């Protein structure tokens, strides 16, 4: 038994199987050598009670000394070098190419200001899941304007069709997509799981005479699955699929890149007169918007003392007010403003938390918020860990300063 073998790091399972192998080979010398190796050095110890090999979690930890002089667990110790160098070097991703595809998976994207939204990325990942790495199948991304980031998100081809995301009920989009499915072999139409995506998916399904699969949670190359009947059953959709994918249930595309070459299907939207005339958006006062829908939430916690100031600031910022349970219990805000496990949940674009500790019950309610800003006097409050940017300061002082700057900008 050479030293190099002995020096190899064994995981518990591998150590045992290696031992077994040596015994099977009747190489008892090697087996004994292996068994006698100082196990602690490999992060194992032999349990006194059972005489069995156990993992020694302490031996596996690495400590660093913090600025305060106290030992701190080094959380990076267990990660590979590659992880620790993340971002330092970026090797070009391998590119998957399809030449002369025969079958197509159509992904219809919503886009927001020329960028892929989270739902669009899920949509493309779902399309990728259906196409796999089959050289004869191409994922075509359709959108109504140019988008960045298509190669990394999984598109083999893309095409811009102006007016594709208009929602005036004309059925022009559905007709165009239908003609696409007659023109070439389409395996699936995938939409973003948004109101608009679900609308087009349903109406295309009606047009094609197939059953749509809205919110599929399991997607394979030729099937997708949705949950139904109050969670009792799964419906397995096969054949030509029209689907939207449930967010978080599709394996993301990470380390590969795709061609995203321009594609010309030749379909265009037939101009049609619609009896629905879009008069544009109407914004209601932010405070009247339900918390679930509100884009910008100003949330006060037990650390806020001046509630008049809080309310004035909310008006000045045009924010929707919310509070922790402590605040609603104290009557500073009505109960329907409570965010958290026993209140409502927010999926705001910005969540500004003032004097809020961020107890788990509260954090449950802000799981889906995009950006969290926090002001708290305590740097150890859990909200600081959740927040994207935190400020250690007095909430009231920051509020009055914000209000002053809003009212009298220099």
């Amino acid at each position, binding site marked *: 038994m050479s030293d190099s073998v002995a020096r190899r790091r064994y995981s518990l399972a591998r150590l045992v199987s290696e031992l077994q192998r040596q015994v099977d080979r009747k190489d008892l010398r090697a087996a004994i050598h292996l068994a006698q190796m100082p196990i602690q050095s490999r992060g194992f110890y032999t349990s006194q009670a059972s005489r069995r090999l156990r993992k020694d979690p302490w031996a596996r930890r690495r400590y660093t000394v913090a600025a305060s002089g106290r030992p701190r667990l080094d959380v990076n110790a267990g990660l590979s070098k590659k992880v620790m160098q993340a971002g330092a070097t970026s090797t070009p991703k391998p590119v998957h190419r399809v030449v002369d595809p025969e079958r197509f998976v159509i992904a219809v994207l919503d886009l927001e200001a020329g960028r892929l939204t989270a739902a669009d990325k899920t949509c493309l990942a779902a399309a990728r899941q259906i196409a796999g790495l089959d050289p004869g199948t191409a994922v075509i991304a359709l959108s109504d304007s140019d988008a960045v980031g298509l190669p990394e998100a999984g598109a083999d081809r893309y095409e811009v069709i102006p007016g594709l995301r208009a929602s005036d009920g004309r059925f022009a989009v559905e007709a165009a997509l239908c003609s696409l499915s007659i023109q070439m072999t389409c395996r699936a139409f995938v939409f973003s799981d948004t109101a608009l995506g679900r*609308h087009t998916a349903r109406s295309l399904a009606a047009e094609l005479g197939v059953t749509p699969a809205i919110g599929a949670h399991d997607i394979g190359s030729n099937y997708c699955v949705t949950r139904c009947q109050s969670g009792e059953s799964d419906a397995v959709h096969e054949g030509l699929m029209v689907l939207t994918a449930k967010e978080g249930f599709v394996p993301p595309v*990470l*380390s590969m890149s795709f061609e995203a070459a321009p594609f010309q299907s030749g379909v265009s939207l037939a101009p049609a007169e619609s009896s*629905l005339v879009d008069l544009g958006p109407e914004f209601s006062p932010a405070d009247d918007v339900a918390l679930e829908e509100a884009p910008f939430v100003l949330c006060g916690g037990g650390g806020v003392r001046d509630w008049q100031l809080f309310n004035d600031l909310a008006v000045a910022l045009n924010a929707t007010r919310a509070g922790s349970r402590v605040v609603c219990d104290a009557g500073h805000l009505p109960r329907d403003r409570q965010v958290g496990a026993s209140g409502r949940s927010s999926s705001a674009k910005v969540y500004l938390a003032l004097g809020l500790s961020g107890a788990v019950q509260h954090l449950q309610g802000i799981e889906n918020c995009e950006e969290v800003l926090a002001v708290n006097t305590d740097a150890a409050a859990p909200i600081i860990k959740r927040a994207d940017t935190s400020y250690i300061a007095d909430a009231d002082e920051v509020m009055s300063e914000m209000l002053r700057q809003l009212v009298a900008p220099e």
Partner: protein
Amino acid sequence: MTKLTRICVLLAVGVNPANCRGRRSSVDAQALELALRFGEQNDGACVDALHVGSPSDERSLRDYLGMGLGSLSILAPEPGVEPAATAAAHLSEAEYDLVLAGSAARDGGASGVFPYQVAKQMALPVLPDVTHLEESDGVLMAKQARERGVRQKFEVRGRSLMTVSPLAPAARLPSFVLAREGTLRWVNSNDERRIDPSAEVLQSPKMRAALPMRKSLATFDPNASAEDRLKAVTALKGGAGKLHDAMEPELIATEILARLKALGVTPD
């Protein structure tokens, strides 16, 4: 559009998830609520309702009658024909100005397609996710729920079908007396031979007992590194960001306001 007079609400039977018994579907009740309110505000508007189903649905349908609907028409589904086609045939005969439906009455992927099937056969435009309906100066206005609390306004100039969003006003509670006194009217669908013969029953997906549903921890690409996976997991959670201590409140306020403006949530 000239004065809107006739509305038909499509009503399905919902399921109580606790005991799997039938009851009114909540979003359909909201659709009916919009229609009833519209009827109360505009004299001469008439609200009808239609269900395609079997006698076993009658009990649940009485909940809708209890909301103040005088009568509800029921069609028996034709064998081998999509229920939506049966509904569409009946509706085109009656020439409604507006057809209202719920956005989705069942759970599961196939839910919400019924109104689109009806609209397709009647060649009506569909306006989805409506929360508000009103008529002013002979013009019908509808508001549609969009992301982040925005309501898109539409002027409706012709016949259309709208699906109602769960964000619409809550439905009134049914009254027992009204529920008992309202009439369920069975319409003989044999009289109506206008059913589109191409509207065969859709091939329905295969059913199986539910398997555990897991969030995906795998990645699409087999060779993705631990680094990529770590990024994918942490990117979703966000957080653990910048911490500023010992900053003047004045500066903090300026910085927060600048960030809010950059994210486009505050007025300039």
